[in-house]
């Protein structure tokens, strides 16, 4: 078993995500320390914080991409639908929107349906790198709808999108929430998901704090 595999433990099915006394960072550099939180299965967690506070570090750790330097991380599911920002993908690959949405799956019908649900019916066969930034981001969201998992991590999915595209992405997230998926949704504008969030996680000062969404909304 590799270190990465050892760092992540599959928890009980009722659990969405649990971090116990976790220190997260890169190499020997800790970015977030003493992280303790429990996210129940089916929660919609908006993740907020200024740039450089450690949102991406937290999200990468939650998605299983960054082993904790200390402590433990548990998830209720083994696989995670990771939605990065569109410009993070290898630009040299001549892949179509359909191929990106399908990922490693052969289920192209499901990928086609996901693309159509995000308003990309006419772009199924288009080359991914020739799509607009908003279209590329929606393709990555479509990919998260194709994979068979109940844990989805969105890393600022609407930061480069127009209002119409943002609404389609939020609708897709709402659909998955209604189906019982646990969702972490990083955003600079928590109000955009105010009607979806059940918990709000703030990343600041080298730590995180988790609060009920209603109490967070009351905080000035």
């Amino acid at each position, binding site marked *: 078993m590799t270190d*990465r595999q050892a760092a992540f433990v599959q928890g009980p099915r009722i659990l969405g995500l649990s971090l116990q006394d976790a220190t997260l960072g890169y190499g020997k550099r800790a970015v977030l320390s003493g992280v303790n939180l429990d996210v129940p299965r089916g929660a919609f967690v908006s993740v907020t914080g200024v740039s450089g506070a450690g949102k991406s570090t937290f999200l990468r750790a939650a998605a299983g991409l960054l082993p904790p330097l200390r402590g433990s991380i548990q998830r209720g599911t083994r696989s995670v*639908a990771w939605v990065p920002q569109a410009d993070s993908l290898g630009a*040299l690959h*001549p892949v179509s929107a359909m191929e990106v949405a399908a990922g490693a799956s052969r289920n192209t019908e499901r990928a086609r349906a996901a693309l159509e649900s995000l308003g990309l019916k006419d772009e199924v066969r288009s*080359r991914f790198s020739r799509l607009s930034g908003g279209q590329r981001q929606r393709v990555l969201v479509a990919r998260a709808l194709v994979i068979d998992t109940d844990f989805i991590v969105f890393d600022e999915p609407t930061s480069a999108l127009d209002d119409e595209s943002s609404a389609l992405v939020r609708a897709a997230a709402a659909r998955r929430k209604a189906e019982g998926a646990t969702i972490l949704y990083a955003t600079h504008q928590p109000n955009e998901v105010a009607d979806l969030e059940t918990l709000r996680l703030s990343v600041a000062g080298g730590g995180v704090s988790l609060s009920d969404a209603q109490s967070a909304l009351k905080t000035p």
Partner: protein
Amino acid sequence: MSLADFVQLFTWPLLALCGAAIAAPITGAFLVSRGTSFHGIALPQVAACGVAVGFALFPYASRMTWTVAGADDHGHIHGVGDPSHLYLGACATILVIAALVLFEAKRAQSSDGDKSAVVAATFAVASGGSALAAQLSPLGGLHVDALLSGETLSTGPWDAVLLGVVALGTALLTWRTWRRLTLAGLDPDYAVASGGKPRRSNLALHAMTATVVISGSLTVGALPMFALLVIPAMALRRRAGSMAGYLRAAPLLGLMGATLGAGLAFQFDLSMDASVVAGCAIVGLVARLIPRF
């Protein structure tokens, strides 16, 4: 020489070339997509260096006393026992695997510029090593040079069978795993998060690359392998609208380049290896004019 005589004389080299022209562009398509085109240049040279080192070390490896005969009609010098292809393949394999391990280690640690510099430096060292080892070989540099440049007349049925098996294996592996191989290069984070094993995919691609490079360098020569690995894939990358189409078109263009190269060699009585490079370059330029697919 008539075309029929040419084909009859070069039947096995031409069949071996066809195998390389199918396998190398498929592998090259993955290398070019990942921004590792330099591997297509460096690795055949490393394989060639391994072959040259194998020649130089053969007297020690076989513990035999060499009696070097005079040059034959072709200017080649043959000893009493030529090293087997298996032995030379093993020598090339050791160096190619060492180079791949080095590239993979640097991939994880370095910036893009450093990674390219490491590959370029490897090519330089392998080129110098090939020349030195060839001179140190008791068979003499001429014999080694002839093999490294694809001594087509010595390519026999077993070479053609080897390249045929490699081409078939490459096509089958790609057909079965191209989605995973693509995802591991396109978005390795997503591959890990979704429960995939991109390291295993990368290892499979490295094994495929090493097999194609070593078998091709030992039979058709390093020079055609440079061209077949890089040029068809590079020429088609901007024209392709999907990875599946790209992987289908690359070997077709490779076959066209190899066919044109063989035709040039026949028509103008040129060496086959350099002609294949010219053929690939010509079809590569023409491919830039075809509509996107």
